[in-house]
């Protein structure tokens, strides 16, 4: 599992996750993911397009990450989830708590909009 990030001129940090977010994958990226999210400018998009498998431990990590960003008065959104990953997040009601978008650009636009939730 890999975690990289890119900063955009609109102030959004997009974190790209790639691989299988099972116990082993989650253990590998949990810390760098948290560091990347918390060291940005408070507008974070986690791009899940490269994640082909999301286990419960990964769901927990994403929730914890979103809570951490929120505590810092920032916002976090998810994007790019494939059909299986999206279904897992929706079935666990995560999609009602963390905004989810299909594309990075949608997520970036929403997260910097003044009225974004």
């Amino acid at each position, binding site marked *: 599992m890999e975690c990289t990030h890119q900063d955009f001129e609109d102030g959004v940090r997009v974190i790209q996750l790639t691989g*299988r977010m*099972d*116990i*082993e994958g989650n253990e590998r990226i949990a810390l760098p993911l948290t560091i990347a999210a918390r060291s940005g400018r408070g507008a974070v998009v986690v791009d899940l397009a490269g994640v082909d*498998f999301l*286990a*419960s*431990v990964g*769901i*927990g*990590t994403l*929730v*914890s990450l*979103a*809570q951490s960003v*929120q505590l810092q008065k920032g916002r976090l959104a998810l994007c790019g989830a494939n*059909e*299986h990953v999206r279904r*897992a997040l929706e*079935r*666990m*009601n*995560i999609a*009602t*708590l*963390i905004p989810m978008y299909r594309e990075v650009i949608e997520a970036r636009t929403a997260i910097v909009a003044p009225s974004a939730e």
Partner: protein
Amino acid sequence: MRSERVFRVLRNELSELRPLSGWVRETAKGLGLPATTCHDIDLCLHEAVSNIIRHGCSDEVDHRVTVRFEAAPEGTCIQVEDDARPFDPLVVPLPSEAAALEDARTSGYGIPLMRVLASELRYECVDGRNLLTLVFQHGMRAPTRRVPRRSGPD
């Protein structure tokens, strides 16, 4: 699609999870199961077996987990048998839906995931061995079992 029954015995080590996943995906694909079913079986087994290893095998004793995979045209039946401490995942209450992000759990999604993705779950304890059966009906979505909304934090 044809019926087949295959076995795999795992040691109670987390390093067994990825090989298990590879075996499950290869078996499911070879049997022509739908992609969604392949994924759901993979995920549910990851959750079930990781729970056994992490929570059921806390002693220093070697344990074994046996996974049986039986596919038929109407559905696929997976059985997970282990000799870890007795545990019935079906009696674990489903977490209620968090009203806000700050109230959401950061753990405990494994059993709920199994319960929504599998068409049916059954548990027995036979001669001190746990036997968890997961059924996946092909082409049929598991019923949408959303957790009940709660009005405030615990």
